[in-house]
Protein backbone atom coordinates (compact mmCIF):
# COMPACT_ATOMS: atom_id res chain seq x y z
CA UNK A 1 0.00 0.00 0.00
CA UNK A 2 1.45 3.42 -0.87
CA UNK A 3 2.56 5.63 2.03
CA UNK A 4 1.00 8.74 0.54
CA UNK A 5 -2.79 8.62 0.81
CA UNK A 6 -5.04 9.97 -1.92
CA UNK A 7 -6.54 13.34 -1.16
CA UNK A 8 -10.20 13.10 -0.21
CA UNK A 9 -12.19 16.29 -0.80
CA UNK A 10 -15.26 17.00 1.28
CA UNK A 11 -18.13 19.40 1.89
CA UNK A 12 -17.99 19.12 5.65
CA UNK A 13 -17.34 22.82 6.32
CA UNK A 14 -20.24 23.89 4.07
CA UNK A 15 -22.66 21.38 5.58
CA UNK A 16 -21.60 22.31 9.08
CA UNK A 17 -22.08 26.03 8.37
CA UNK A 18 -25.43 25.36 6.69
CA UNK A 19 -26.69 23.63 9.80
CA UNK A 20 -25.16 26.20 12.13
CA UNK A 21 -22.96 23.67 13.89
CA UNK A 22 -19.63 24.52 15.48
CA UNK A 23 -16.72 22.09 15.13
CA UNK A 24 -17.18 21.23 18.79
CA UNK A 25 -20.89 20.46 18.40
CA UNK A 26 -20.32 18.32 15.32
CA UNK A 27 -17.43 16.52 17.01
CA UNK A 28 -19.56 15.81 20.08
CA UNK A 29 -22.31 14.36 17.86
CA UNK A 30 -19.77 12.13 16.15
CA UNK A 31 -17.89 11.16 19.32
CA UNK A 32 -14.55 12.52 18.10
CA UNK A 33 -12.27 15.41 19.13
CA UNK A 34 -13.03 18.84 17.69
CA UNK A 35 -9.55 19.20 16.18
CA UNK A 36 -10.25 16.17 14.00
CA UNK A 37 -13.13 18.03 12.31
CA UNK A 38 -10.72 20.81 11.30
CA UNK A 39 -8.17 18.33 9.96
CA UNK A 40 -10.87 16.56 7.90
CA UNK A 41 -12.26 19.85 6.56
CA UNK A 42 -8.83 20.97 5.39
CA UNK A 43 -8.11 17.58 3.83
CA UNK A 44 -5.22 16.96 6.23
CA UNK A 45 -6.86 13.78 7.51
CA UNK A 46 -8.91 11.19 5.65
CA UNK A 47 -11.59 9.74 7.92
CA UNK A 48 -12.08 6.00 8.23
CA UNK A 49 -14.96 4.42 6.32
CA UNK A 50 -16.83 4.06 9.62
CA UNK A 51 -16.45 7.76 10.45
CA UNK A 52 -17.32 8.84 6.89
CA UNK A 53 -20.50 6.74 7.02
CA UNK A 54 -21.38 8.13 10.45
CA UNK A 55 -20.97 11.68 9.08
CA UNK A 56 -23.18 10.83 6.08
CA UNK A 57 -25.77 9.34 8.42
CA UNK A 58 -25.71 12.41 10.64
CA UNK A 59 -26.25 14.79 7.71
CA UNK A 60 -28.74 12.35 6.11
CA UNK A 61 -26.88 12.51 2.82
CA UNK A 62 -25.30 9.90 0.61
CA UNK A 63 -21.60 9.54 1.35
CA UNK A 64 -20.63 10.67 -2.18
CA UNK A 65 -22.39 14.00 -1.56
CA UNK A 66 -19.92 14.69 1.26
CA UNK A 67 -16.68 12.94 0.25
CA UNK A 68 -15.06 12.62 -3.14
CA UNK A 69 -11.68 12.02 -4.77
CA UNK A 70 -12.45 14.95 -7.10
CA UNK A 71 -12.64 18.58 -5.95
CA UNK A 72 -16.18 19.41 -4.86
CA UNK A 73 -18.34 21.73 -6.94
CA UNK A 74 -20.23 24.41 -4.99
CA UNK A 75 -23.49 23.07 -3.57
CA UNK A 76 -25.48 25.85 -5.28
CA UNK A 77 -24.10 24.65 -8.62
CA UNK A 78 -25.11 21.09 -7.86
CA UNK A 79 -28.63 22.15 -6.84
CA UNK A 80 -29.48 24.94 -9.32
CA UNK A 81 -27.43 24.09 -12.40
CA UNK A 82 -29.71 23.66 -15.36
CA UNK A 83 -29.80 20.10 -16.64
CA UNK A 84 -28.35 19.62 -20.10
CA UNK A 85 -30.88 20.06 -22.86
CA UNK A 86 -32.58 16.82 -23.89
CA UNK A 87 -31.67 15.59 -27.38
CA UNK A 88 -34.38 16.20 -29.98
Amino acid at each position, binding site marked *: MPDQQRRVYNRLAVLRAERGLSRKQLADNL*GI*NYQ*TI*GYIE*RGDYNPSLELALTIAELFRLPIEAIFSFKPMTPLSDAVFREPPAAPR
Partner: protein
Amino acid sequence: MSTTTTRRIEYLPRSRRRTLVAVALAGYPVALAVLAALKHTGLNRWLILAVFLLLLLTTVAALGVGYRYARGRIDGRRARLDERDLALRQQAYALSHRVLAAILIAVTAITEIYLTNGNTLRLDANTFWPAAMWVIVYIPALPSLMLAWIEETDQPSDA
Protein backbone atom coordinates in the same frame (compact mmCIF):
# COMPACT_ATOMS: atom_id res chain seq x y z
CA MET B 1 -0.71 26.48 32.89
CA SER B 2 -3.14 29.17 31.71
CA THR B 3 -5.75 28.47 29.03
CA THR B 4 -4.19 31.06 26.70
CA THR B 5 -0.77 29.43 26.91
CA THR B 6 -2.30 25.98 26.38
CA ARG B 7 -4.16 27.19 23.28
CA ARG B 8 -1.05 28.89 21.92
CA ILE B 9 0.85 25.61 22.30
CA GLU B 10 -2.05 23.70 20.71
CA TYR B 11 -1.95 25.88 17.57
CA LEU B 12 1.83 26.15 17.24
CA PRO B 13 2.78 25.81 13.57
CA ARG B 14 4.57 22.59 12.72
CA SER B 15 7.76 24.42 11.65
CA ARG B 16 8.05 26.04 15.08
CA ARG B 17 7.23 22.76 16.81
CA ARG B 18 9.97 21.02 14.85
CA THR B 19 12.47 23.68 15.95
CA LEU B 20 11.42 23.09 19.56
CA VAL B 21 11.80 19.32 19.16
CA ALA B 22 15.29 19.81 17.72
CA VAL B 23 16.18 22.11 20.65
CA ALA B 24 14.76 19.59 23.14
CA LEU B 25 16.73 16.70 21.63
CA ALA B 26 20.01 18.53 21.12
CA GLY B 27 19.83 20.80 24.19
CA TYR B 28 21.13 18.41 26.84
CA PRO B 29 24.08 16.96 24.86
CA VAL B 30 24.99 20.51 23.75
CA ALA B 31 24.82 21.75 27.36
CA LEU B 32 27.14 18.93 28.48
CA ALA B 33 29.54 19.55 25.58
CA VAL B 34 29.63 23.31 26.32
CA LEU B 35 30.22 22.58 30.02
CA ALA B 36 33.08 20.21 29.18
CA ALA B 37 34.63 22.73 26.75
CA LEU B 38 34.30 25.73 29.08
CA LYS B 39 35.84 23.85 32.04
CA HIS B 40 39.25 23.98 30.34
CA THR B 41 39.10 27.68 29.42
CA GLY B 42 39.69 29.07 32.89
CA LEU B 43 36.50 31.12 32.78
CA ASN B 44 34.77 32.13 35.98
CA ARG B 45 32.97 29.11 37.50
CA TRP B 46 29.77 31.07 38.00
CA LEU B 47 29.73 32.18 34.40
CA ILE B 48 30.17 28.58 33.23
CA LEU B 49 27.38 27.49 35.58
CA ALA B 50 25.10 30.28 34.28
CA VAL B 51 25.70 29.27 30.64
CA PHE B 52 25.11 25.59 31.50
CA LEU B 53 21.91 26.37 33.41
CA LEU B 54 20.64 28.58 30.59
CA LEU B 55 21.11 25.79 28.07
CA LEU B 56 19.54 23.31 30.46
CA LEU B 57 16.52 25.53 31.10
CA THR B 58 16.02 26.04 27.35
CA THR B 59 16.05 22.25 26.94
CA VAL B 60 13.59 21.74 29.78
CA ALA B 61 11.27 24.45 28.38
CA ALA B 62 11.35 22.85 24.90
CA LEU B 63 10.67 19.43 26.44
CA GLY B 64 7.79 20.91 28.45
CA VAL B 65 6.20 22.45 25.35
CA GLY B 66 6.57 19.14 23.47
CA TYR B 67 5.02 17.21 26.32
CA ARG B 68 2.23 19.76 26.70
CA TYR B 69 1.55 19.69 22.97
CA ALA B 70 0.80 15.95 23.08
CA ARG B 71 -2.12 16.81 25.43
CA GLY B 72 -2.31 13.38 27.05
CA ARG B 73 -2.50 11.58 23.72
CA ILE B 74 0.68 9.58 24.33
CA ASP B 75 0.44 8.69 27.99
CA GLY B 76 -3.31 8.02 27.83
CA ARG B 77 -4.27 10.85 30.21
CA ARG B 78 -6.84 12.08 27.73
CA ALA B 79 -10.00 10.12 28.35
CA ARG B 80 -11.18 9.91 24.75
CA LEU B 81 -8.82 9.29 21.88
CA ASP B 82 -10.49 9.26 18.49
CA GLU B 83 -9.29 7.43 15.38
CA ARG B 84 -6.97 10.27 14.29
CA ASP B 85 -5.40 10.50 17.77
CA LEU B 86 -4.83 6.74 17.81
CA ALA B 87 -3.31 6.78 14.32
CA LEU B 88 -1.04 9.69 15.29
CA ARG B 89 0.01 7.95 18.49
CA GLN B 90 0.93 4.85 16.52
CA GLN B 91 2.96 6.94 14.05
CA ALA B 92 4.66 8.81 16.92
CA TYR B 93 5.68 5.54 18.60
CA ALA B 94 6.96 4.11 15.30
CA LEU B 95 9.02 7.25 14.63
CA SER B 96 10.34 7.24 18.23
CA HIS B 97 11.50 3.67 17.72
CA ARG B 98 13.32 4.65 14.51
CA VAL B 99 14.93 7.72 16.11
CA LEU B 100 16.01 5.72 19.15
CA ALA B 101 17.49 2.98 16.96
CA ALA B 102 19.38 5.61 14.92
CA ILE B 103 20.75 7.23 18.10
CA LEU B 104 21.84 3.86 19.54
CA ILE B 105 23.56 2.89 16.28
CA ALA B 106 25.32 6.29 16.12
CA VAL B 107 26.47 6.09 19.78
CA THR B 108 27.70 2.51 19.28
CA ALA B 109 29.58 3.48 16.10
CA ILE B 110 31.19 6.54 17.73
CA THR B 111 32.21 4.48 20.78
CA GLU B 112 33.63 1.79 18.54
CA ILE B 113 35.70 4.30 16.53
CA TYR B 114 36.86 5.96 19.77
CA LEU B 115 37.96 2.63 21.28
CA THR B 116 39.64 1.26 18.15
CA ASN B 117 41.82 4.39 18.04
CA GLY B 118 43.55 3.25 21.20
CA ASN B 119 41.44 5.28 23.64
CA THR B 120 39.90 3.85 26.76
CA LEU B 121 36.42 4.49 28.07
CA ARG B 122 36.14 4.92 31.81
CA LEU B 123 32.73 4.41 33.33
CA ASP B 124 32.47 6.66 36.37
CA ALA B 125 29.96 9.12 37.78
CA ASN B 126 31.08 11.77 35.25
CA THR B 127 30.13 9.60 32.29
CA PHE B 128 27.41 7.43 33.79
CA TRP B 129 25.10 10.16 35.11
CA PRO B 130 24.86 12.27 31.96
CA ALA B 131 24.06 9.10 29.99
CA ALA B 132 21.57 7.90 32.62
CA MET B 133 19.90 11.33 32.70
CA TRP B 134 19.56 11.27 28.93
CA VAL B 135 17.86 7.86 29.07
CA ILE B 136 15.61 8.86 32.01
CA VAL B 137 14.50 12.13 30.41
CA TYR B 138 14.43 11.40 26.70
CA ILE B 139 13.07 7.88 26.35
CA PRO B 140 9.74 8.71 28.04
CA ALA B 141 9.56 12.11 26.27
CA LEU B 142 10.45 10.86 22.78
CA PRO B 143 6.93 9.78 21.68
CA SER B 144 5.45 13.17 22.71
CA LEU B 145 8.25 14.98 20.86
CA MET B 146 7.69 12.85 17.77
CA LEU B 147 3.96 13.56 17.88
CA ALA B 148 4.77 17.29 17.97
CA TRP B 149 7.11 16.69 15.03
CA ILE B 150 4.63 14.89 12.75
CA GLU B 151 1.24 16.47 13.36
CA GLU B 152 0.01 18.94 10.76
CA THR B 153 -0.58 22.52 11.85
CA ASP B 154 -4.04 23.02 13.33
CA GLN B 155 -6.00 26.21 12.76
CA PRO B 156 -8.37 27.78 15.25
CA SER B 157 -12.02 27.19 14.48
CA ASP B 158 -13.96 30.10 12.99
CA ALA B 159 -17.29 28.63 14.03
